[in-house]
């Protein structure tokens, strides 16, 4: 994996989200075991390759996209950005609830941004002293991050909470900066993940129109 690990405080998450992941042309088999019930039967793959059409035209984009997704997931796990609770959420997604993960994650984003605004608002107060209130926000943030498997964000919140418990304002500021950075990175990566997933679903749909 040649992707750079973001250094604390120095990465520009905008750049991260622009970077495309390039893959070799063959069907990637390095799946990480992420279950996907919509994988195509191998017979169709073989048939396609005999017609002489370029591989990408046969909708093998879906496979490549799945590999992209798995690669990104593996990276995020490796970086400690996500943990197995995220996998648990994926297991809860199926035909009856096909957008479960993105729904939960979008709620998480919404709630988190509220919390971040509140936290920043509190710390910016000239006469700030309400560490207790900050602690309440942080407890919520820790809980929700843990529930979706956002491990790094959660850990920063825990450290932030410790600084808050010590009434350490400077420490809280540093923690807030770090938290905002980690949160941005997470959000960008998850958006990337969902985009790839959407494209993959589309690609799989075009390839097997009958199966829709």
């Amino acid at each position, binding site marked *: 994996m040649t992707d750079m690990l973001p250094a604390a405080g120095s990465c520009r998450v905008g750049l991260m989200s622009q970077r495309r992941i390039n893959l070799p042309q063959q069907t990637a088999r390095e799946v990480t075991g992420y279950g996907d019930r919509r994988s195509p039967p191998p017979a169709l793959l073989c048939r396609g390759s005999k017609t002489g059409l370029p591989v990408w035209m046969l909708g093998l984009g879906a496979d490549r996209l799945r590999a992209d997704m798995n690669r990104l997931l593996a990276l995020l796990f490796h970086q400690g950005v996500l943990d197995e*609770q995220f996998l*648990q*959420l994926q*297991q*809860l997604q*199926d035909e009856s*609830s096909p957008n*479960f993960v993105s*729904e*939960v994650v979008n*709620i*998480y984003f919404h*709630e988190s941004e509220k919390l971040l605004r509140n936290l920043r608002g509190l710390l910016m107060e000239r006469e700030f002293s309400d560490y207790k209130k900050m602690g*309440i926000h942080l*407890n*919520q943030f*820790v*809980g*929700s991050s*843990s*529930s*979706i*498997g956002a491990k790094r964000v959660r850990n920063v919140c825990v450290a932030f909470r410790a600084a808050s418990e010590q009434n350490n304002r400077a420490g809280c500021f540093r923690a807030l900066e770090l938290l905002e950075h980690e949160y941005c990175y997470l959000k960008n990566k998850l958006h990337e993940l969902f985009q790839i997933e959407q494209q993959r679903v589309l690609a799989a749909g075009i390839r097997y129109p009958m199966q829709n």
Partner: protein
Amino acid sequence: MARNGFTSRRRRSEKIDAFDLTPPDHSQEVHVLAVDDSIIDRKVIERLLRISCCKVTAVDSGRRALQFLGLDDEKSSSVDFDTLKVDLIITDYCMPGMTGYELLKKIKESSTFKEIPVVIMSSENIMARIDRCLEEGAEDFIVKPVKLADVQRIKDYMARETKPGNDQESGINKRKLRDSFDMSSVSPPSISPSSSSSSPSSPLSSPSSPTPSSRSTLPSSLSAPSSPTNSLDSPITRLKMTNTD
């Protein structure tokens, strides 16, 4: 099929005929009342329960939960628990207003609902908190984040408790076991469910054991031979194992 055992009615009152007269589809599914102030956790627990074939009602506070059950102070009208049929209550511990612990107490104080198993969830793995909840009558304590395995364990555990026949005693006797350990400090851990009590009169409801329940003294007094129901499935054992590992 044993599924009929999920009807909470059967557990709550021995006066009602054991034969379930309600339509099968309602009694097949376990109805869970989930209480959590976090919208994310509500969404996740709801999905976990639905995927485990439970009906779910999710509320955002202890007060709403009591309202739903009809235990709210404002309206103490008689509750038609036949239609409510809550089989399990699962609640977060840390909530603004009424904590999960306070909710647990209110439920255990109610004659109508005290038999309903209550499970506490918490992001903090604090033994004192766990003990306190179990003493108050909580069925189980789950450390968040909640996983499918946790929900499945609770379901199995409820299935065991509400199975017809002899095993139906096991849930109540599990508590009796706890109490009897405190009061008689006698040992033989191989107390079989049927011998412990003849009639399932709920011993748990009497706040008779001010001393800590045996669950909290599990390591010392139940060291070697674990009692039949407090085996490896015990959440405390599991917690302790994960704690020390």
